[in-house]
């Protein structure tokens, strides 16, 4: 058994499987949802197997075709990759279940369902390929795969606003990925390799490298919607069908961020990035406040959630200024933890919003008034999931913030404390606003019937999101294996 697990490169299967399933779903549209569901069931198993294999074996990097690295494409099953694969598998599984209820196999939304599955599976495969990639150009290809699938999924709603949002997202992505690609080109031109590990070893602190890094970071910042370049995100995430919104907010935004993490910690550690770190930290801080304030004044649930994503992305960018030498691990793990936690929580929230939109015809927050019965369950899901957004213990968000504050304190960057705190309070405020509406005492004559699949899977996810902190130890340990950081995670003031 052990042999079987170790021998297979499960993390590679995790990319091939959804891609193959996507083709199959395209070929057999009537069976698409079954194909999707089976894949969604298999992928978490694969993820477990991949994690087991990774813990049992030493090697974390192989290359496609076993060609040596400057030539071949490195595929990595290091901690970050495995953790992201696992979270994606989990969230993807839940979203697939939800989509089964959201896109009915019969009925007038048939054609949407027909294309949802291959697109979604492509997206999933693309994400997985991205997470394991250790090659800057391959990262570009996978990123584009993810982007294209996202564009199509956003447009799947079919309305003009959705199309406009999709198109805007497409242009933004093009801009971002071309900037990134230009940076990759310059790096290749200088070092004749795009392998992350090799580059990390070779890179010198030259101005050209700095320029390349700037281009890449700018592109990725655009794609991960950091303030003030978040403008495309609320529309794109709001206009899409609910499962897609969930995927976008939970996973797609993280793709660009994962690349950024890899760049910052693995490719460019040699460069003097303190000033850039502070710039990103500043933007992140503004994003936290801005996103939260914007979320506070939204009338639509999905927009609120989307702006909450903007704020949460701000937190993710605090990693860069906070990652000083001694607080490196603290910040890095904090970022990874927040990514995971946010993925679970935000996906559940978007699913709730989608269900409300689906059943009530609109996702205006005021429609929640007097929520009871089946809607009550949704509110519960929303609340539980929101715990991680606010950063309430024992959610992952709580521990991520713990690590950030720890890093900020030890590295002497006190000014991030009020930012993190006010972000927390503002988050609580906008969540409380939603709850307030939901608790408003209004008599309702009847409650809509909500399909089974749209009610329970999000609940599971929200519970996981809320309790993520309690099970975070293993993921964190996993993420630390092969991580570019090695200082203690919980740092104490030096003597």
């Amino acid at each position, binding site marked *: 058994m052990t042999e079987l697990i170790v021998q297979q490169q499960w993390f590679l299967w995790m990319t091939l499987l959804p891609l193959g399933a996507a083709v199959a779903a395209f070929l057999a549209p009537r069976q698409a949802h079954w194909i999707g569901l089976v894949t969604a069931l298999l992928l978490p198993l694969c993820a477990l197997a991949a994690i087991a294999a990774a813990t049992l074996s030493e090697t974390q990097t192989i290359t496609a075709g076993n060609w040596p690295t400057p030539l071949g494409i490195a595929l990595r099953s290091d901690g970050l990759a495995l953790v992201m694969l696992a979270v994606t598998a989990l969230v993807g599984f839940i979203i697939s279940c939800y989509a089964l209820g959201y896109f009915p196999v019969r009925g007038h939304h048939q054609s949407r369902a027909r294309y949802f599955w291959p697109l979604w599976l492509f997206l999933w495969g693309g994400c997985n390929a991205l997470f394991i990639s250790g090659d800057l150009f391959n990262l570009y290809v996978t990123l584009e795969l993810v982007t294209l699938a996202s564009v199509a999924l956003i447009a799947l709603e079919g309305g003009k606003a959705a199309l406009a949002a999709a198109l805007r997202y497409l242009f933004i992505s093009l801009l971002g990925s071309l900037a990134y690609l230009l940076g990759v080109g310059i790096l290749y031109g200088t070092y004749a390799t795009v392998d992350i590990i090799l580059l990390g070893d070779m890179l010198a602190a030259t101005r050209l490298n700095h320029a390349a890094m700037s281009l890449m970071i700018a592109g990725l910042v655009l794609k991960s919607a950091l303030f003030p370049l978040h403008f495309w995100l609320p529309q794109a995430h709001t206009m899409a069908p609910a499962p897609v919104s969930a995927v976008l907010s939970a996973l797609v935004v993280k793709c660009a961020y994962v690349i950024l993490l890899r760049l910052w910690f693995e490719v460019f550690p040699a460069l003097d990035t303190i000033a850039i770190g502070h710039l990103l930290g500043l933007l992140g801080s503004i994003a936290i406040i801005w996103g939260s304030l914007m979320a506070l004044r939204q009338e639509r649930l999905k927009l609120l959630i989307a702006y909450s994503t903007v704020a949460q992305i701000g937190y993710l960018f605090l990693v860069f200024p906070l990652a000083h030498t001694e607080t490196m691990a603290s910040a890095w793990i904090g970022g990874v933890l927040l990514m995971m936690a946010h993925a679970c929580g935000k996906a559940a929230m978007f699913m709730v919003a989608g269900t409300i939109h689906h059943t009530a015809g609109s996702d205006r927050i005021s429609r929640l008034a007097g929520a009871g019965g089946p809607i009550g369950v949704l509110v519960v899901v929303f609340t539980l999931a929101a715990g991680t957004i606010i950063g309430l213990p024992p959610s992952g968000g709580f521990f991520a913030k713990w690590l950030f504050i720890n890093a900020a304190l030890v590295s002497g960057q006190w000014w991030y404390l009020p930012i993190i705190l006010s972000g927390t309070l503002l988050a609580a405020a906008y969540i409380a606003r939603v709850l307030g509406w939901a608790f408003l005492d209004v008599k309702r004559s009847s409650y809509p019937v909500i399909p089974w699949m749209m009610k329970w899977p999000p609940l599971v996810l929200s519970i996981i999101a809320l309790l993520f902190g309690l099970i975070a130890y293993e993921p964190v340990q996993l993420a630390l294996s092969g991580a570019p950081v090695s200082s203690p995670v919980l740092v*104490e003031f030096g003597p």
Partner: protein
Amino acid sequence: MSDLILPAILLSSLLPGLIIFTLPEESVRLRTTLNLGGAVVKLLLVALLFFHVAKREYTELRLPLLPDMELVLRADALSLLFLILSAFLWFLTTIYAIGYLEDSPNRSRFFGFFSLCVSATTGIALAGDMVTFVIFYEALTISTYPLVIHRGTPAALHAGRIYLAYTLGGGVVLFIATVWLRAIAGPLDFSPDGVVASLDPALHGSLTIIFALLILSLGVKAALVPLHIWLPSAMIAPAPVSALLHAVAVVKAGAFGIIRVIHDIFGIGFSAELNLLFPLALMAAFTIIYGSIRALSQNDLKRRLAFSTVSQVSYILLGVAMATPLATIGGLVHLVHQGVMKITLFFCAGNLAETLGIHKIDEMDGVGRRMPWTMAAFTVAALGMIGLPPLAGFISKWYLGLGGLAAGQPWVIIVLIGSTLLNASYFLPVLHRIWFVPSRQDWPSSTLRDGRETTWALLIPPLITAMLVVMLGVLAHSVGSALYWVELIATREYGP
């Protein structure tokens, strides 16, 4: 086996809560079974744990959260004190709430959050280190919010906002202080000698700031003036919630946290050495008096009770801040006594509201004739609050007074006297109205078959707690009483 008790205690309310969320509104029977079943199971488990701990078999469960950070559940004498209180009162409050919310909407939601709230309280009791404590503390904050706004009226929502603003504000400060302390002192396991005493004297400045932050943040829930604003406004919640809120869950969590910080993080001796306790004692004393004075002018019964809570909870803090064995006994025992007394008062206030629609004190004229049992319970609890012997409140005051003398701070007695006078002056007129003023209006007579004043579910819990108020005082020196248990704790803390 004994390792599993601690998580089992947590799950005994968490799981039913989560299941209840999913139940449709109509399945009353299943929900009731789950509620009561969970409460009973928890009581049994706590009893089992009690015998373990009484035999000095401390159990501990460690669950890694992050590298170098663990979730520590541990049952020591202090945690058991709070645990028994919460488990028992939860049981009663569940019964009460079932009766109180009969036929009202959104019961699944209510009981779901109710169970979460209790799970969090249980977690606070069992927390074995500061991190775990913070986790459950914040969980409590948020799980109580839906209960506060349960009624869904604009007023309730407003109160909820205030509640959230205060408690979460406190929560984040607590969070920062804890992270800071963790960064200075390393792991923060609760231990009788504290964990920071051995640190470099150069850090004492930081420690003082951290202590202040911790006390202020925990003081929000403990309703230290001027952080108490949320408490009187939160009384808009349904009576069972107010009962639990004031007696066990939220307010006590704050007080309990302060006890933990002083005893088990900083250590009594070290806190005293840094001169941290005297300001706290002053704050507590001020709160005691201020809360009582504010209570005087309230006409809304629950508001008056709320201000009374503001005042009474600070007894606990006063006792802890005196830092003498006797005062600690007084403070800790008040944790239990105040809980039992205040929950009785809120039960009774709820009965009045639910059965007769009475909310204001000036509507209570002669209500003792219509609801004699409820009002008898109310009377006992109110007298206990004033501190009449041999009721529970007297025991606390006696030890507080002795402790104050032992600490060389006789002004405490003046505070106690002043507070007693004020307590009397806001409770006795109410009692007078209840029993001696003829009623001005005709209340609907009982619709129940046997002419009972209200349903059993509403009647029995306050009667039991009122009985308890008497027993806790009369049998204070018996084995197994709160005082007995608290004396054990104090012995552990200060040595025999």
